[in-house]
């Protein structure tokens, strides 16, 4: 078997995507197969490429705000947060304390929403149709809460330099608290239906084994990294916004397989709920928008702002030249690096395991393509 594989005989090319149910969008993977074994998967990117970095360079910085939501459509608020964060850092503006809390609350809701969708989609990739409908029921509650404050359901454009567009009210706080207890009551159900299921466990245990060295070589971040035992989370490692004020854990697992990534994400749901609870308790009064000059120019110089997106480390690197248009903006997206290890990770794997691996990487293709 191996000798035949080494010779490269009996191999054939299987084209997976850009329209394939488990590539989650317009990712294309060219698989060199041997029977059902994937010998060499090569991702092909760029089907959803929009050159966001060029767009940022070609117009005044406030005009990039809507773009920030359109890279990773599942964590638009976290991308919002990163972008206003980098502009604030470069221009030396501080958002009001209440605004920072609102940003954290909405970001965590957004993270929960992304994790819930991922949970459903991973199980869908493995062939179970029902859990995604249950996670969507939960996710819908978050979307309703966020819609009420941001006005949109998916591509939010909510945060502004200095604060947020609309202050949250008591109704929002109350609904979020209701949601927290609802989500807590749902988790045992997922434990029984998904985590405990023998077929599910056998499908993702010992599949796609990541290790810390691989993580270093490829720049792996996010829950997949924490599954290898490295407790690296930007919210803790380089705290931004008001995250230092909250007490939460960084869940880690040591096995580094898809199951570990799964468990980390499921436990992160609980941690996000904890952050939400504390943020709602501590929410300070005051304005939700700081006084910001109407025509803000970006000073010369550069600044980075790293945030923890549901998929890993998101970095905005903004270079200003004294005008209102950025001279250069680099966006480092987590899935880009996370996907780049696919060829090494999935060599010699079964086709079904490749689907499980891609599901547990939690890919969002427009984010990779930018």
């Amino acid at each position: 078997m191996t000798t035949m594989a080494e010779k490269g005989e009996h191999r054939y090319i299987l084209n997976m995507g850009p329209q394939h149910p488990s590539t989650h969008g317009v990712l294309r993977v060219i698989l060199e197969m041997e029977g059902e074994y994937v010998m060499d998967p090569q991702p092909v990117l760029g089907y959803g490429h929009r050159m966001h970095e060029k767009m940022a360079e070609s117009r005044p910085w406030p005009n990039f705000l809507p773009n920030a939501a359109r890279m990773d459509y599942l964590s638009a608020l976290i991308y919002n947060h990163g972008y206003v964060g980098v502009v604030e850092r470069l221009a030396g503006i501080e958002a009001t304390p209440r605004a920072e809390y609102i940003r954290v609350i909405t970001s965590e809701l957004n993270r929960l929403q992304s994790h819930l969708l991922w949970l459903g989609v991973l199980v869908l990739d493995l062939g179970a149709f029902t859990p995604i409908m249950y996670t969507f029921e939960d996710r819908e509650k978050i979307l309703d809460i966020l819609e009420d404050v941001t006005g949109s359901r998916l591509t939010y454009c909510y945060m502004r330099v200095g604060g947020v567009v609309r202050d949250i009210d008591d109704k929002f706080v109350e609904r979020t608290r209701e949601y927290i207890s609802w989500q807590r009551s749902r988790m045992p159900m997922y434990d029984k239906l998904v985590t405990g299921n023998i077929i599910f466990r056998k499908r993702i245990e010992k599949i796609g084994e990541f290790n810390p060295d691989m993580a270093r070589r490829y720049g792996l971040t996010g829950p997949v990294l924490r599954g290898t035992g490295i407790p690296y989370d930007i919210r803790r490692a380089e705290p931004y916004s008001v995250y230092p004020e909250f007490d939460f854990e960084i869940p880690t697992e040591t096995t580094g397989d898809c199951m570990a990534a799964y468990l980390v994400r499921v436990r992160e749901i609980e941690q996000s709920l904890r952050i939400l609870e504390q943020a709602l308790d501590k929410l300070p009064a005051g304005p939700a928008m700081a006084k910001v000059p109407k025509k803000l120019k970006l000073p010369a110089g550069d600044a980075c702002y790293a945030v923890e997106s549901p998929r890993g480390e998101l970095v905005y690197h903004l270079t200003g030249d004294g005008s209102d248009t950025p001279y250069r903006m680099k966006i480092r997206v987590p899935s880009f690096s996370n996907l780049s290890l696919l060829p090494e990770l999935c060599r010699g794997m079964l086709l079904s395991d490749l689907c499980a691996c891609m599901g547990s990487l939690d890919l969002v293709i427009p984010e990779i393509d930018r």
Partner: protein
Amino acid sequence: MKDYFALIFTGGKSLIVGMMITLRELFRPVVTVQYPREKLPLSPNYRGHTILIRDEEKPEKHRCISCKMCERECPSNCIDLAGEKREGVKGMVLIKYRLDFTKCSLCGTCVEVCPPNALDFSKVYQHVGFSREDFHYDLLAMVEEDK
């Protein structure tokens, strides 16, 4: 050998537990609605396409002063408006306000920058058309029609 039977037992149990959960959900009420027949209440803060709102004091008029702030600030360049000077009227009179909704990303910049707060979001979420031009909304006509 012990593991062999233990796996059968735990595995079988987990399958039955899973089936009990879906069985329980089977008898619970549905959570979705039949969309065109039933509609969920829309959030009052929902962002549909922008509209010109009418003055509270003078309900027959919109508040737009044709200052073109929204046109300048729009990230997607989807607003096209024009005003003209008319005799006997103070300020500019709006003669055209076209919104290219195919480009609009509903960021809300125009609503925020508008000095007289003449713009607001509508609650329209059903947009149907056969060509791109069907989504070029004439906000001025809309506000006049609405009287």
